[in-house]
C-alpha cells in the first residue's frame, strides 16, 4: 500500500508520448495541469474544467479521458498520449492530415481533443458511419465548425483504409 501525506510530494512515474517521465508532484495536481505546466505539453487545452467539453482529451492506456477530471497521481505506471505524441518527426498521422485536407480546423482550440477522440474511434472500429462518428464525438464540443468537416475528416480516414 502507498500513502503520501499532503505535505509530501508524490514521485510519479509514467510514460508520456512514449518517453518515461519521472516527476515529484503534489497529490492534488490534476493530470491536465501536470501535462501543461510540469511537462509543457500545452496542446492539451482547458475549456470547461469539468469533463463536459473534451478539450483536454488525452489517451490514457489507449482510452480517451478528460485530463481535467483525473488526479495525476492516479496515472502512476500508465501510458499517456497527448496531441504532441501523435506525429513523429514531423510526419502527421492520416487523421491529422485529413483534418487539414477537409478544412476541419477553424479556431483550433478543440482540435487536439477532437483528433484524439477520432484516433480512438478509428482504432476501435473497422468502419464508421457518419452517425456513429457524431455519437462518438459527442464528448468534444466545437463552437466554430458545426462538426461537419470534422466528421468528413474522420469518415475519410475510415474509408480510405478499407
Amino acid at each position, binding site marked *: 500500500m502507498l500513502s503520501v501525506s499532503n505535505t509530501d510530494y508524490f514521485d510519479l512515474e509514467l510514460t508520456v508520448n512514449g518517453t518515461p517521465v519521472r516527476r515529484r508532484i503534489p497529490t492534488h495536481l490534476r493530470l491536465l495541469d501536470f501535462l501543461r505546466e510540469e511537462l509543457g505539453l500545452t496542446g492539451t487545452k482547458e475549456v470547461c474544467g*469539468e469533463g*463536459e467539453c473534451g478539450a483536454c482529451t488525452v489517451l490514457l492506456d489507449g482510452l480517451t479521458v478528460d485530463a481535467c477530471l483525473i488526479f495525476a497521481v*492516479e496515472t502512476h505506471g500508465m501510458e499517456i498520449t497527448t496531441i504532441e505524441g501523435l506525429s513523429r518527426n514531423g510526419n502527421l498521422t492520416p487523421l491529422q492530415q485529413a483534418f487539414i485536407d477537409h478544412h476541419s480546423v477553424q479556431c483550433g482550440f478543440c482540435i487536439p481533443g477532437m483528433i484524439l477522440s477520432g484516433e480512438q474511434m478509428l482504432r476501435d472500429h473497422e468502419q464508421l458511419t457518419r452517425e456513429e462518428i457524431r455519437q462518438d464525438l459527442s464528448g468534444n464540443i466545437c463552437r466554430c465548425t458545426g462538426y461537419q468537416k470534422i466528421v468528413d475528416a474522420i469518415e475519410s480516414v475510415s474509408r480510405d483504409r478499407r
Partner: protein
Amino acid sequence: MAEFTYHRPARLTEAGDLMATLPGARLLAGGTDLLNDLDAGLVSAQHVISLRDIPELGSITERADSIAVGAGCTIAAIEASPVIHKYFPELLSVGLVFATPQVKHRATLGGNICSAVACGDFPVILTALQAEVTLYSAEGTRSVPMREFPLANRKTCRRDSEILTEIIIPKKPPAALARYEKFRRRAAGSLAVASVAVYLDLDGTRCRQARIVLGAVAPSPVNAVEAAALLQQKDLTPEVIRQAADLARKAARPITDVRATAEYRRELIFVLTQRALRAMVGYHGEIR
C-alpha cells in the same frame, strides 16, 4: 483544490482499515464526480483513498443465478463485457445515453451509484432489476437492496467506513426484459430531465411481474409500486398500459429547476412509461 493525503491500498482489507481509521476520508474511483465536487467546494477531503489497485473491484463474474459487477468497473468496461451483453443488454442501452465517451472510460458503476445524484441513470435501472449492493468494512460485509441504497439527493445508506464492492444483479427469467427510457434536452452528453426503467416478466402479452422505477423526479429513484401492481397478472392492452403510465405520473415528486418545470417532468414520466411498456410488449407506434 486543496491538498490531501493520498492513499492507494492494494487490497480491499487495507482500504477497509483506512476507512475505519480515517473518518471523513473520500474514496476515489473514476474521479469524474469527485474532482468536480472538490473543485466546486461541495465536498472537502483531507484523505483520499484510491481504489485503483484493488483487483476484485474491477471484475464482472457470472454466478449461478446472478451477475456480480465489481464497483470499480467503468461504464465502458460494462459496455464491452460479453457477460453483460448476454444477460443484461438493457444496461448497454443505459450506457448509450450516459455521459460522454471520455467520462465512460473513467466513471465507474459504483461511483454512479454512490454519488446518488437525483438525475443519475444506473440506480434507476438497477432498482428495476432488483440489484443488491455489497458493502464492505473492517467490521464485515452487508448487502443492501438497490432500492434502499439511495436515501436522498447525494445521500446513501453507505456508512463512512464502508466501501461499495459489488453490484449483484439477479438473472432474469427467460421471458423477462427491462428497458430504460431517458429524456434529455440534447442528443448526447446530457443529464436526465426524467427517466423511467421498466422490468417486465411476460407470458405473451400477459404480465407475470412488473417493476417501474422513475428517475430525476424525486431526490432518489421512485419505485412506482401502484403503477407496477396494476400491470400484475394482466393482459397488457394499450389501455392498461396507459393507466399504469398515469399512475407512474402520479408517483413522481419532481421539482422545477433550470432543466424543466415539475409539471413537464410529470408529463414526461407518463410519456416515457407508456413508451417503454408499449415497446416491450411490441405495440407499434405511440399514443398519448
